[in-house]
């Protein structure tokens, strides 16, 4: 039960973090006309954060 609560709290915190990362104003910081490693900055930012977010969810839920 205790572990259940901890996981829930971590996921909720991650959710708020995700709302921050995937919204204005942080998005406006990467809304620039430029490339990083051959990929537009905005695309790179979105996909890297996305993968990180899902990775963190997996770690939080699956960690024993």
């Amino acid at each position: 039960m205790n572990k259940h609560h901890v996981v829930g709290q971590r996921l909720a915190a991650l959710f708020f973090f995700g709302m921050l990362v995937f919204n204005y104003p942080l998005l406006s910081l990467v809304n620039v006309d430029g490339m990083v490693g051959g990929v537009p900055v905005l695309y790179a930012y979105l996909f890297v954060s996305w993968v990180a977010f899902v990775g963190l969810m997996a770690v939080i839920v699956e960690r024993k």
Partner: protein
Amino acid sequence: MLQPWVIALVALGYIGVLFAIAYYGDRRVTAGRSLINNPYVYALSLAVYCTAWTFYGSVGRAATTGVGFLPIYVGPTLMAALWWFVLRKIIRISKVNRITSIADFIASRYGKSTLLGSMVTLVAVVGIIPYIALQLKAVSISFTLLWHFPDLSLPPINTIPVLRDTGFYVALMMAAFAILFGTRHLDATEHHEGLVVAIAFESVIKLVAFLAVGVFVTYGVYNGFGDIFTQAAARPELRRLFTFGDSAHAFENWFWLTVLSMMAIMFLPRQFQMAVVENVNERHLNTAIWLFPLYLILINIFVLPIALAGRLTVSGPDVNADMFVLLMPMIKGNELLALFTFIGGLSAATGMIIVETVALSTMVSNDLLMPLLLRTKVLRPSEHQDLPSLLLLIRRAAILFIVLLGYLYFRLTGEALSLVSIGLISFAAVAQFAPAIIGGIYWKGGTRLGAVVGLVSGFLVWAYTLPVPSLVQAGWLEGNFVEQGPFGITWLRPYTLFGLSGLDPVTHSLFWSMVANIGGYLVASLIGPQSVIEHRQASLFVDVFKQVRRGEHIRLWRGTTSVPDIQNLLERFVGRRRARAALAEYARERGVTSVEELEADSELVDFAERLLAGTIGAASARVAIATVVTEEPLSIEQVIHMLDEASQVIAYSRQLEQKSHELEAVTAELRAANERLKELDRLKDEFISTVTHELRTPLTSIRAMAEILYDHPELDTNRRAQFLGIILKESERLSRLINQVLDFAKLESGMFEWHVSEVNLRSVVEEAVASTEHLFRERNVRLRVVVPAHVPTVEADHDRLVQVMFNLLSNAAKFAQDWVEVRLTLQGDVVRVDVSDNGPGISPEEQELIFEKFRQLSRGTRNRPQGTGLGLPISRHIVEHLGGRLWVESTPGAGATFSFILPVMVSEGAIAPVGVQSS
């Protein structure tokens, strides 16, 4: 050049495989080896979220708006983090209450309301039909495109006869599939295993197909991501897609689309079907929380490259960007891949159609048609026999009806809208369920009236701001009210309601419909009253994790029925065999041997209603039960009375509990007191034995001396005097001992006589020193006395103070090595006397013990002071009685200092130069 018959054959072959997989899945259940009891299958089945919209439409949207397609997938990813709370709760509630659709869920929460159930069903059907049309449209145009290649322009849909349109046949085959695997048995809480396995399989196919195109375009046609992006960057109209652009509202639109898709992933009927109804184990959710978003990432990685590559490769006004996924392999001459892509798109479309129609047909039959039928006379008990078959028939007809309605919609609206726009309209429709559901599972105050008002107003605003104007623009409705507003009222223009402009239509509609919906829900809930059954359902839903087992909550029900009536009802709705089995199982649970012995009580009614709810929905079940149960309408007074009874029982049991706690506390106190008494008794015994021992020692020597003197009268005078001296000394010791014991007893009982007068401490010290001088001399200890010439007087008992000083001095004399110092000082308004020695000292633990009356006596043997050892306790008693304090300071090995202070009586007398006396 692909021949149409090849394409058709492959498509048919694929659908055949789907049927085979579903059949196999169902067979495995019968064999007892379920395929869907697996978290990965569960997560994959959730990917039914990705439809033809994702497969074709994302690329189309990306080709025109850049990252504009992404919120639809970021939203569900964020929501997945909250599934841990929200979805888990919805699943639990649905399992406990045997809920089989989203309409059932809302109806059940708000007092099993038939009205709400049918309203939700209507909203869902109206909202989802365009979405189904979207799938058929995607299949139809992808087939046509494949067939007509290299002609990139599509013939208008209304020029293709229905019977030559692939969309039509796909629609029919999907209806057949849904009927076969979605309505095989009645109890919808039994899972559609074959169907779920087939959907999971489709999720794999569409992902693999999309990834194949992505890899082909990115690495086959171009040299990786960098190549595509660099080439696109050279074209200004494509470089524009790398950012949100300059639109002031780009971020608002992004945010609202994220919110919209967060609601869609929870409340689309097909998502509810897969995530809640088909869930066999709550733990599967743990895997789905991260695996499903991972799926979303994978299927989106190549969207932007394909979109940009499409824009780089193909141009022309006829080209539909939605079809880039299919066009790219075709233009590059890879027909096999093109065919596989077509199958991928087909799998995305069919998966959605199958699950959506099964979900909608359950709603239509349970929440729309059943309540209607039950209220008409036709279905009253003992008039109609084969109800289960009728129910199945209704569902099958509903499936066919919904699919054909979708096809009709597609034929009528044609090419007017892109895939994504149609899909978003549906998203905004199902978002209207969010307030009633989220409010319903976390807030007990939400009422039926609130849900109805919220849903109706939200739905009306949605209809007015999204589908109606889009139909006008499709040329379907006459009028120019989109531009001018109805009757020329400009602030009612559907795309800029109340002058709110700049947002895209979906965001705009979502905002206003949510304002109306949430506002209506809250206001009506807070104003209106809540009926008894609403209240009961509300706590059943909100507190679902607190309920331990059935029958624990207070049943607010009173009515009459009979067991045979209920049995008949169940047999008619769920079939004879299943009804009997369920009742027998229930009887066993209740601890009776046969169904006949059951009591027709509220619990049985409750059980029957739940069983029925699994088949015909909560609202219909309530109507059906009402036909055999004459329920006494409960007045508020009766409810209050029932609650009172219950709360009295609770209060009584609380009182009992409290009493037992008090008893425990008293028992513990008594036990402690008993322990203390035993200890005191033991100490008293020790005290007596020690005292008697101490008394016997001088008595023995007195007697021995006396016997010698008696037996030997011839002893010389010197010896005689010596013996008599010993006798005297021992008698003195004996009387001192007895006096002390008596003193102590008096002190203890408070019968001590005090003679308080003005006392000069200097004389007290001198007197005590004089009477102990011989002790010091005997032990060869030097005594230093430091006393001021004038000492203020204190109010005290002179003799008792002498006794205290005598005790302290004789103790010091016993322990000192070679010196003792007595020092008298005046400290403010107290006089302080210190008696220091350089003896072995007293350890910190023993410093308080030595003042305890019995401890001293019971302490070890060697260091025990001679005499009674009552000296110190008596001394402390005396000093404290006179308003002072007596304590000891000592470092083991460095001697001890006993000090006491007494308050000065009158502040007079100065301290003269210190006089030193030595002896």
